[in-house]
């Protein structure tokens, strides 16, 4: 598309560029500049602080666990929803978006109650699932589950059926077909869904606040630590930590963009 200036160019360009700059780039710039002005020692002090290190590692680890959990269950859900027609499939499909629609605070509230000692599920479990790391992973999995399902579904729907039929006629067992023909086609979507789920989980705040107990060195996540620092007026520390989190988010975002560019959706030949 060459730059054909259609009527409406000026107005739409104006709104887009102005809106984008004011609402997105300006706040980002504020963060970047404040981080730039921070004393060099702040970052070092930050990384040296064991509480910060623990929180960051825990955030990453819990997000990873949640993303893996979602990879497993999300794949199963997507496969069943696309391939196996069953009564109520449409309802089930709509339900998958529940974690996106439900406020994170509400999610955290109900999960803490449900998996708590007196909850319907909690009382059946031989181990505690709240106020510990397991609870955090539960909450993170809940809020980011739809990413994997929604990433996979369009790819599964577009998968040409004659590929699997061809493999079968060539003598491949169902398992071999799934492993050698179907899975490689799904890989980009799986990675993309995993990455989005991970990114969402790393930055999650609302639901965790209710279920983790916010115990330093045990169940404290990085976003919470930012809030703590803000309350203590340690702006430099908060900004430094925010920049680190932003870097992680942007890296993941970049990775997903590159994936989409290289593989784009399902390839049909």
């Amino acid at each position, binding site marked *: *598309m060459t*730059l054909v200036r*259609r*009527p409406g*160019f000026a107005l*739409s*360009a104006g*709104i887009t560029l102005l*809106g*984008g700059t004011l609402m*997105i780039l300006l*706040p*980002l710039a*504020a*963060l970047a500049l*404040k981080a730039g002005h921070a004393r060099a020692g702040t970052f070092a002090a930050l990384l040296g602080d064991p509480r910060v290190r623990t929180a960051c590692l825990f955030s990453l680890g819990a997000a990873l666990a949640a993303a893996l959990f979602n990879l497993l*269950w999300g794949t199963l*859900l997507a496969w*069943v929803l*696309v391939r*196996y027609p*069953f009564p109520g499939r*449409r309802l*089930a*499909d*709509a*339900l*998958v978006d*529940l974690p996106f*629609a*439900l*406020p*994170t*605070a*509400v999610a955290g*509230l*109900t999960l803490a*109650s*449900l998996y708590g000692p007196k909850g*319907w*599920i909690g009382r059946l479990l031989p181990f505690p699932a709240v106020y510990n790391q397991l609870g955090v992973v539960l909450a993170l999995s*809940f809020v980011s589950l739809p990413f994997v399902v929604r990433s996979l579904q369009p790819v599964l729907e577009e998968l040409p059926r004659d590929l699997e*039929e061809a493999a*079968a006629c060539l003598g491949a067992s*169902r398992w071999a077909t799934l492993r050698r023909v179907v899975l490689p086609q799904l890989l980009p979507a799986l990675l993309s869904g995993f990455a989005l789920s991970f990114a969402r989980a790393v*930055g*999650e*705040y*609302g639901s965790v*606040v*209710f279920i983790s107990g916010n115990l330093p060195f045990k169940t404290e996540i990085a*976003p919470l630590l*930012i*809030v703590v620092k*803000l309350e203590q007026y340690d702006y430099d520390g908060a900004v430094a930590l*925010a920049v680190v989190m*932003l870097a992680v988010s*942007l890296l*993941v*975002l970049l990775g997903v963009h590159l994936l989409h560019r290289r593989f784009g959706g399902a390839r049909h030949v």
Partner: protein
Amino acid sequence: MSEIPLPAEGVGEPRWLRWTLTAVAVAFLLVFLVLPLANIFHAALSEGWRVFLASLRDEEAAQAIRLSLLSTGAAVLLSGVFGLAAAWFLGRHRIPGHGLWVAVLDLPFAISPVVAGLMFVLLFGLDGWFGPWLDRHNTQIIFAKPGIVLATAFVTFPFVARELLPLVEALGPEAEEAARLLGASPWQTFWRVTLPALKWGLLYGVILCASRAMGEFGAVSVVSGHIRGETMTLPLHIEAVYNEYQFGAAFACASLLSLVALVSLALKSFVAWRARRDREAA
């Protein structure tokens, strides 16, 4: 969804495996998603109807509801207008830096809500860029309603744009060009040709935006200051009463938000169905 071609029956998984996997998937959905939802309503009514209604009529709750609605409305308006403009502009023109701008649209998506809130504190807080200027003019953004509105707007800003951009690109400029050739003015073209083609996508984006805005917690928490009766949105109010062990009240408000969530899910399904139907009829 029966239009999706599946591999021949001779080729797929054995029937028993299909049913087992389906059962496991449905069981997972029930336990992992439906049970938490049911728990909200169960816990909301566990202390009886009177407590339930009183929690919602409570002055602080009412204020929280009003503020949530205000910031949601503003967020939807901003996201909607920006979304239409940006999707059309980026979808029809290839300026240098096009790819970058599309990536910029994704940024609020990728940023942790707490970090988002922090950015606004850095802009409008007392020590922020505009802090002194605001102080001189006796305006407050942080720890006041405007801050909440802004933070909510930021987090939901690109929702409509992201929803519309692929639609605009798929639509192609032909219909608009035909209208122009027939003598329509740019505004007429927009209202009569472009907008109707995008209406379902727009509606879908608006629902997503509103849904997210109502539930936003992290960003709002940072800029709000938690001033009871002043700067509490409904999710923040839930947290406040929860911390005071008023579980019935907390769940009552949570059930209200859950109803909103369920309605938004139903609306989304409806819109997606209508959009698909229109596409197939075309």
